[in-house]
């Protein structure tokens, strides 16, 4: 149970830092810590091969979300 508590506590810390950070691109750095913590605790809560797919889907999805927010903040996706 100790590893799950460590993951969840780090997620809570990262969520507090996201709220307290005033600048938008640096919020995304703290948000990635939250993504790592949640993806780790998904697998630790349910030890199953399906939980691995759930963690990978959550991680890739949230990474894509951060990528889209950062690209739009930087001035839009380059259209070729």
């Amino acid at each position, binding site marked *: *149970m100790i590893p799950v508590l460590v993951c969840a506590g780090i997620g*809570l810390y990262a969520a507090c830092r*996201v709220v307290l950070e005033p600048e938008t691109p640096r919020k995304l750095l703290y948000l990635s810590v939250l993504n790592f913590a*949640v993806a780790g605790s998904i697998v630790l809560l349910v030890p199953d091969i*399906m*939980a691995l797919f*759930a963690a990978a889907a*959550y991680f890739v999805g949230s990474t894509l979300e951060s990528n889209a*927010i950062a690209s739009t903040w930087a001035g839009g996706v380059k259209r070729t």
Partner: protein
Amino acid sequence: MMEYIIAIFGIIALIGAFTTYLRTSPFDKLIGVAIMTGGVIPFVVIKGYLDVAIVIALVVPVTTIFMLQASRRGMR
């Protein structure tokens, strides 16, 4: 021990909901929705509905991308 973990993820979801409500910039609102999703998905996983968790994790980023497309036209 399990109730502490549930309480921690509930607090994360509440933080996401309140920061979505209080911030005014559209980017900060979308980041708040991302925090709220990260707090909600472990509740689905604890009960064992892993397929529902996969669907949520894949639908929310697509929704975010659509919201960014819609909100960018008003911003710039």
